[in-house]
Structures are given as C-alpha cells and as structure tokens.
C-alpha cells in the first residue's frame, strides 16, 4: 500500500501526458477538421474527392494500426519525429477524419434558404459562414464533437503500446512493481472517468447555451 502511495506522483506524470496528448489532438483535429469540412462542402470539385477519400479511408483503419504506422513506418521514409509527436500525429490524423464528417453534417443541416438570405443582403462568402452558418451549425456540431473529444481521451490509452508513459502505461508499470492490480486499475478507471465526465458536463452546459434556436 505504501508503494502504491509512493507511486502517485508517477501516475500523476502519466495523467499529464494523457491530458497533453489529448489536448493537442483535440486542437489539431478541430482546426484541420473544420478547414477540411468547410472545404468539402464549399470547395471546388478537385478538392472534394481527396478529402472524401482521406476521411473515408482513415475512419476505416483501426487507430492502433495508424499509431504503429506513424511510429514505426515514418522513420522508413526518413521522417523522424519524436515518439510523442508521432502519436499525436496519428491520433490527430484519425480524429480529423471524424471531425470532417461532423463539420460537414452540421453545415449541411442548415437550410439553403439561410445561405440565400445571406447572399441577398450582400454578405460575402466568409461573412455568410461567420455570421449566418456557423452560429447555427455549432449547435449540431457540439454533441458529436464532444463525443469525439471523449473518444480521443479514451483512445489515447493506445499510445501506451508504443511505450509512451501515459496514464495507462503508468498504471501498468506501478502494478508491475507493487502487485496490487485491482485498486490501481480502479483508480485509473476513476481518473479517466473523472476527465470524461467533466467533459460531458461541460458539453451539456455548452449545448444549453446554444439551444436558442427552436425549430
């Protein structure tokens, strides 16, 4: 039991890595997914298919395969990233594919009459997007996006398989030294739960904030 308590700072380090990786992935995939999602709806035809294929292919590959590919595969192409960078890249690429779909769905849920009304008063494309489409689309965007964020935190546990000491691997290593698996797994599960439950709570707040549109 003493060992377990002594190992708490170690678990804390793992938790920080999990949070750091998750946060980076959430930010990168939000930016890339939004840009590509807007492009797939409004962009020219020659952009549509590459994005479509990217999104479909990546969503069809198990995340673990993607992580191994970035981790072991990229060096073969003389692309040398740090361990952490390679897993962040893998997770971000994977999440981006999902976010593209979420953004596309949210935009296309807005009736075309909204775009036309925006055009009619003389708004340019960017203005229509910013002042007409986005404020309405965000409501459709939020629930699946929060799901994707929760998924990212859980999915990040896979990076332990390439030896990055995140919360998952930290737990396992402590178990390896202390031989008290159950309490530690419960503690670990609790930590993941606390993170994700706070996310869910935050998301419900957000959704309520954007619930001003009655249909």
């Amino acid at each position, binding site marked *: 039991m003493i060992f377990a308590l002594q190992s708490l700072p170690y678990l804390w380090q793992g938790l920080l890595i999990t949070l750091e990786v998750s946060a980076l992935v959430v930010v990168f995939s939000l930016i890339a997914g939004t840009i590509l999602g807007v492009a797939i709806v409004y962009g020219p035809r020659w952009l549509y298919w590459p994005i479509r294929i990217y999104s479909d292919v990546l969503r069809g590959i198990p995340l673990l395969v993607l992580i191994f590919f970035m981790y072991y595969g990229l060096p073969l192409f003389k692309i040398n990233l740090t361990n952490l960078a390679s897993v962040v890249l893998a997770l971000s690429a994977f999440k981006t594919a999902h976010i593209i779909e979420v953004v596309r769905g949210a935009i296309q849920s807005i009736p075309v009459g909204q775009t036309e009304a925006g055009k*009619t*008063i*003389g*708004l340019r494309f960017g203005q229509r997007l910013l*002042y007409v489409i986005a404020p*309405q689309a965000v409501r459709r965007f939020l629930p699946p996006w929060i799901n994707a964020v929760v998924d990212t935190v859980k999915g990040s546990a896979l990076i332990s398989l390439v030896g990055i000491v995140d919360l998952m691997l930290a737990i396992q290593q402590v178990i390896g030294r202390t031989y008290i698996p159950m309490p530690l797994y419960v503690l670990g599960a609790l930590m993941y739960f606390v993170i994700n439950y706070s996310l869910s709570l935050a998301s419900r707040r957000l959704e309520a904030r954007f619930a*001003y*549109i009655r*249909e």
Partner: protein
Amino acid sequence: MAENSKTSPVVRIRDLRKSFGTNLVLDGIDLDVQKGEVVVVIGPSGSGKTTLLRCINLLETYDEGSIQVDGLEVGFRDGTGGGRQRRSDRELARIRADIGMVFQLFNLFPHLTARENVVLGLRKVRRLPLAEARRIAEHWLVRVGLGDKLDSLPSQLSGGQQQRVGIARAVAMDPKVLLLDEITSALDPELVGEVLTVVQELARDGMTMIVVTHEMAFARDVGSRIVFMDGGRIQIHGTPREVLSQTRHDRLKAFLARIELKLH
C-alpha cells in the same frame, strides 16, 4: 409615365434565357422596370416566375441575354478580349447589396433577434456604426408595425410578423429594387393583409418593386403594370386594366379561373 420611360430603367432585362438541364425555363424575357414602378408578375405554377426573380439577384445564373440593374450587368463582367466572365463572390455581394429580396418562407436568421436580423447587413455590408445601424433597423421595424418586437427571436413571432421582419431586413439596405416572391403564400389567410399593407405603403413611397403574387386584388390596386408569364415567356404585358381586360386570352383566362377557384 411619359417622363419615366425616357430615363434609364432600374432593371433592364433583354432576351433572358435559362435552362435547368434540358428544361427551358426562361425563353427570351424582355422587361424594363422604371424607378418607382411596381411590376406584378403572375402566371401558372412552373411558368418561371421564381426563376426570373432569382436570376435578377444571381441566386440562379442565366445562360443567355442580359440583366442590368442600375446600368450594371449582374451576371457577368466583360472579360479580357470581349468575352463574358462570371463575377466573383465579392462583386456579386456588392451588386446584391443593392437588390432586396423577400422570400416566401421568410428565411430569417433564427439565431438573431428581429433587430439583429436587420442590423446584420447594415453593419457588415454597409459598414455603418452600430448605433446608426440600430437606429435604421428600429426605424424600419417600427414602420412595419413591430416596434414592440425588436428583441424577439423569429421563433417567437407569427408568420406575418416574421415576414414583416423579412421586409424590414430588405428595405433597410435601401435597395434600388425590391424582389418579392409570393411573400404571403405561406401565411394563414388572416395574416396576409398585414403584410400586403406594408408592401402597399412601400409602393406609395416610391419603392421600385417586382412582385410575384397570386393576390389579384393587390395586383390590380398596387401594380403599375402586370406581366403574365406562361411557358417561360411573357405572354401579356400592360397596365392592370389592360391585362385583366384581356378575357379572350385563353391561357390568361384559364389561369385567372384557377386562381378564383382556389380563393373561393
């Protein structure tokens, strides 16, 4: 009228042609609208009325012919070497800012209050300071009888009220011409009057309008001219008295009979 016809028209349409695939929808439309005129467009379903209006502010592109608003070709600019080039989004936005449109289904921005719906274009397109934009928005909302609904969301308004916000949103931009496409046909009958009254007042104040409607009383009383469309062409064109007295024109007769049926 005699003087009007000498000045250049606000809207000038020449030999306008437009197809959807193989379906020829506008088959050579010629139409001039002078400043202050209210041109009422009538015609059976599918005759191309909506398409005509949507071409004027380039919600639809057109294939051939010309549409000029205030002397400016809306669909194209002269390309290098004389050819026609489609206009950029930025150019289109500038042209559209001067062409108001009110929709059958209102198309208000549901996330914005009545006032914010009107303010948006004044701020972002006309680039007015907030205080002035709000003042103009309030002025128009009061004019359409919604002075007590400034802060209501569209979902809190009746259909007739929403449509009046739609009108305020369009006229606040001070357009050169206002396009109205069956703006009362989605309304409960008892709400039609309040919207048409607003349009009638605008007409009296000299707003140039092209109005697609099935309200024949409105066409007769408010229209400077009536245009009867069928099969993508203008079949009859004249003052309300001239057009509505052409009772021997078979297709007009059939159309008017069908409208009567729907009304009674």
